[in-house]
């Protein structure tokens, strides 16, 4: 029972819905396309349509809505900040409220609302992607998707391997951090008490052993990988196959259709 059992990796929720079973490359491209499309939507109704799509997709995936909304928590502050900055510092439109040098205009308020809404939708799209795709699938998918870049000397496989190893070791490193923190607290290190400066000093006693251990792990792991004939991506095969199915095609077309519909809505709608 350790830290790694409590902290879940990313936001992935295992499941068996259509969305889960789609090829990660399809999901990634769909998410990217929708994100780009989002920047062409300028009216509220367009955003609302987008939101409706997202909610429908989440429902189809069988994941409770609250998990989607939980993805907003880390950036709630940013959304609020965006809203306030836009509302207070916009120069367009007529003044609604004034309080000393703080001015709120009507156009500014609309703009604040739009930008916050857009930011929210962006985060929801990426959250959705990570909810239905496991980190390793995503890494694997990106590896295959961008493998053509190796023509331009970009080490796509090696980058993907680094990410895979990082994912593999996160729980292990979390457990180790837990142990080191406990050991140093047992020596009176001010990690769980005192002001921020005292706590920072205590962290040196955690970071250094962690780094030393991480470098040693890397060295040993490299030897073990070489002993099993690892030599980079050249000539490497994969046990897991990633094959596109008809469902991927339909899903991709569906995503495209929805995106275009949102655009159309945008042009035709009034506000």
């Amino acid at each position: 029972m350790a830290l790694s059992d409590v902290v879940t990796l990313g936001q992935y929720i295992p499941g068996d819905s259509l969305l889960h079973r789609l090829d990660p490359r399809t999901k990634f491209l769909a998410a990217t396309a929708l994100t780009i499309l989002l920047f062409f939507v300028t009216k509220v109704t367009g955003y609302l349509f987008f939101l409706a799509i997202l909610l429908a997709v989440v429902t189809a995936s069988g994941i409770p809505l609250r998990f989607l909304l939980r993805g907003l928590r880390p950036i709630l502050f940013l959304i609020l900040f965006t809203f306030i900055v836009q509302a207070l510092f916009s120069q367009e439109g007529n003044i609604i409220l004034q309080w000393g040098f703080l001015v709120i205009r009507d156009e500014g308020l609309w703009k604040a609302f739009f930008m916050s809404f857009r930011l929210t939708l962006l985060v929801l799209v990426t959250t959705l992607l990570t909810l239905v795709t496991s980190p390793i699938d995503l890494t694997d998918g990106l590896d295959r998707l961008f493998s053509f870049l190796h023509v331009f000397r970009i080490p796509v496989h090696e980058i993907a391997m680094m990410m895979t190893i990082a994912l593999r070791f996160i729980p292990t490193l979390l457990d180790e951090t837990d142990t080191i923190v406990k050991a140093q607290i047992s020596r009176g290190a001010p990690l769980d008490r005192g002001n921020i400066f005292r706590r920072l000093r205590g962290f040196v006693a955690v970071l250094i052993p962690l780094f030393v251990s991480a470098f040693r792990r890397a060295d040993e792991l490299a030897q073990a990988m070489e002993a099993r004939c690892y030599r980079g991506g050249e000539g490497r095969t994969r046990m897991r196959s990633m094959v596109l199915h008809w469902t991927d095609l339909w899903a991709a077309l569906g995503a495209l259709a929805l995106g275009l519909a949102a655009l159309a809505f945008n042009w035709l709608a009034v506000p």
Partner: protein
Amino acid sequence: MRIEAEHLTYIYGPGLPWEKRALDDVSLQFEEGEFVGLVGETGSGKSTLVQLLNGLLRPTSGRVLLDGVDLTDKKAPIWKARLQVGLVFQFPESQLFAETVAEDIAFGPRNLGLSRQEVAKRVEESLLKVGLEPARFRQRSPFTLSGGEKRLVAIAGILAMEPRVLIVDEVTAGLDPRGKRDILTRIKLLHRNERVTVIMVSHDMDEIASLVERVVVLKGGRICRQGLTREVFSDEESLAGCGIQLPTIPHILSSLVKAGWSLPVSIFDVREAARLIAQEYHDGII
């Protein structure tokens, strides 16, 4: 210092799907100056118990008393009290971080707020207590030491806080036979000279049998058996029920007893065992 555990219960992740009752109503006493062994299969609750005893964890219910003072009392300045129970984790050398051995050992005393002279004095004394010559080791970088030496430095770091109780968790893990012998000798000497209470957590029954006066066996978060060493290591079946084996010599003796020989089981000295077996063997012939 007397340590008491009163009806300790600890639950990991209460309310979550992976909720686990690591300790269930455990009550124990450790008298001043005792040398006690704490054994049990992996997952029996040993590390949880040990972390509750030094105040790293707060029990879900129950109390820990150090010389009658309730460690779990919310109003008690827990962090100073917990430092009187020194806990040496498994592979303690992985917690070394300072530039020199002296700096690392000084970490604990400094956190206690001791004066510079006192800190220096404690560093010297701790190095001597673990058998490392201060002049040779004081200024060296801990990362250039051998595995066994690093471990001794880590232990010195805990000793420098002059704990009244010393808990060592798998203190010989990963060491070669000589390293094991050295560390166990050190601990035995420490127990004798400093009169600290020592609680030794180990999977090695031979080690435990050779050192401790009393054994506590945990299983599934509860006390399965406890008592004097030779009492606990006398019945193979009940120990198997607790998930652990007898030390090697008692195990051999127990197998012979099962085959009909008349022998005591809790003998830990190999010469004594040889004498008794030979006697029984020759009696059979005559």
